[in-house]
């Protein structure tokens, strides 16, 4: 119990002070924002994957939709960055909510397949609908606008944007944490542990899978919205199944059973992507793939799984 407080305190302290220490170890703020964006999406996915036990391979759909929602909102409707984030979150969440009934009855590999299929539908729509989404060139021409805080106008430069992302990351992570300690979260975990037992305790398993899917979609939409603002750009690639796979890799690499696992996974993934791709621009993914194989074989509970085991043994 008390250890959890220390761990959480340390994580938040490190995230809050990133602007101070990150440059010292050769990082830069845009990289940190990227990590947070993907960590948030992977944590949302992990609610489904690690805590409800549903193998979703289509989270990029809601991540990408969040991005398109935000981009289109800024292009056509408003100059408020915050409203655009909210709009993207709603778009991603609503899509997941509406597609939930299609996926909630599927299990295992069938769940993975249908979630991929739905994701690919959105990918092809975004790729083909040139006049609205910019087609395969992606949607550009919008940019994050300064924040109007009432007493000041804050331009979102790299450092300010990091804290902007951290603010929403904190909300998303806080919601997930509260959820996992609530009856609803307990029920999700029960479904992961044993669907049959849950059903015969009177739990309507499918409705809860739907709820988990929708909540993961909201979080993915939020992360996708922030991603669009980070790049001032969104392209169909963000909807593609490879992006879904990346999120799964982050969750598994860091540890599916751990709350902070996806954050650790995102740090490793984005870190390798950034560092290795400057030396091997065309095959940095080989490193990720290799690491993923090693992880699945030797530490199936992810990096935090090892840490936890060590701490237990000590």
């Amino acid at each position, binding site marked *: 119990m008390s250890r959890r407080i220390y761990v959480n305190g340390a994580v938040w302290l490190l995230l809050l002070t990133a602007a101070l220490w990150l440059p010292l170890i050769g990082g830069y703020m845009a990289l940190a924002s990227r990590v947070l964006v993907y960590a948030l999406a992977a944590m949302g996915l992990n609610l489904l994957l690690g805590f409800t036990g549903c193998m979703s391979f289509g989270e990029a759909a809601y991540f990408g939709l969040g991005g398109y929602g935000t981009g289109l909102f800024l292009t056509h409707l408003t100059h408020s960055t915050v409203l655009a984030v909210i709009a993207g979150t709603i778009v991603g969440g609503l899509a997941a909510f509406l597609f939930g009934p299609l996926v909630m009855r599927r299990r295992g590999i069938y769940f993975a397949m249908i979630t991929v299929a739905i994701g690919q539908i959105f990918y092809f729509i975004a790729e083909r609908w040139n006049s609205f989404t910019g087609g395969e060139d992606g949607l550009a021409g919008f940019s994050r606008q300064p924040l109007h805080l009432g007493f000041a106008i804050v331009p979102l430069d790299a450092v300010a944007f990091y804290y902007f992302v951290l603010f929403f990351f904190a909300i998303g992570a806080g919601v997930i944490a509260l959820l996992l300690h*609530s009856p609803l979260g307990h029920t999700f975990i029960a479904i992961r542990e044993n669907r049959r037992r849950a059903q015969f*305790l009177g739990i309507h398993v499918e409705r809860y899978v739907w709820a988990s899917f929708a909540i993961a979609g909201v979080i993915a939409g939020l992360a996708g919205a922030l991603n669009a603002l980070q790049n001032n750009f969104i392209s169909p690639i963000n909807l593609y199944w490879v992006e879904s796979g990346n999120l799964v890799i982050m969750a598994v690499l860091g540890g599916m059973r751990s709350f902070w696992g996806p954050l650790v996974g995102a740090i490793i993934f984005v870190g390798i992507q950034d560092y290795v791709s400057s030396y091997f621009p065309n095959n940095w993914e080989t490193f990720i793939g290799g690491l993923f194989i090693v992880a699945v074989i030797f530490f199936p509970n992810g990096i935090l799984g090892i840490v936890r085991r060590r701490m237990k043994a000590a």
Partner: protein
Amino acid sequence: MSLLRLTNISRVFGKLVALQNVELEMEEGRLYAVIGPNGAGKTTLFNLISGFFPATSGEIWFDGRQINRVPAANRVALGLVRTFQITEVFPELSVFENVRIGVEAEARCSTRPWPGRALIRQINQRVEELLETTGLSAQAGRIVSELAHGDQRVVEVTMALSRRPKLLLLDEPTAGMGQEETAHMVRLIRDLHVRQQQSILFIEHDMDLVFGIADRITVLNYGKVLATGTPRDVAADPLVQAAYLGEASA
């Protein structure tokens, strides 16, 4: 009025007739056993009652309602809660957490994303009460998969009790247990029956156990009811002796 009534129940799997024209009636507060050799259709009977799959024909009445088409999860809310022959628990959670899932479902708050303190206190209190009833208090914090087999089965029974069943269905509650564990489970079943007037329908293999505690017994063989009655009547029934008891004592 009877609590549970099966009229002319049959279940067919392809060409296999697993149950044929089974009649069963049970009053509230009874401890009722279904026995029979392997493959007699005992677990199939439980699966029909609990809604695991539907009956091919016949009617299932529970607490004054015909429940043939009621989904499994809803039957639990009606008061029909079962355990499984092969223990079904939440293996990686603690004993406390296992029971809490059921308590939260019973409190109809499983959908609550942020419960109040009063609700949490109430839930925890009820979990502790249940653990006390089944003698698991000392093990509350342990991960269920690390418990002995017998204790895991007790956890499953405790979870079932968390839904305050009107009728508790126990599928071979002592399966795979040693002598001591069996004695503990039998004591638990009898306690629930005597002290809390819990209605219990259970499947059992162990003959001595059944004759020792059941009010009434139904004997199944090849999917048909061979005999129904008090333990004494059933034991004296020549058909039963031929089909089952003879075999068991051989």
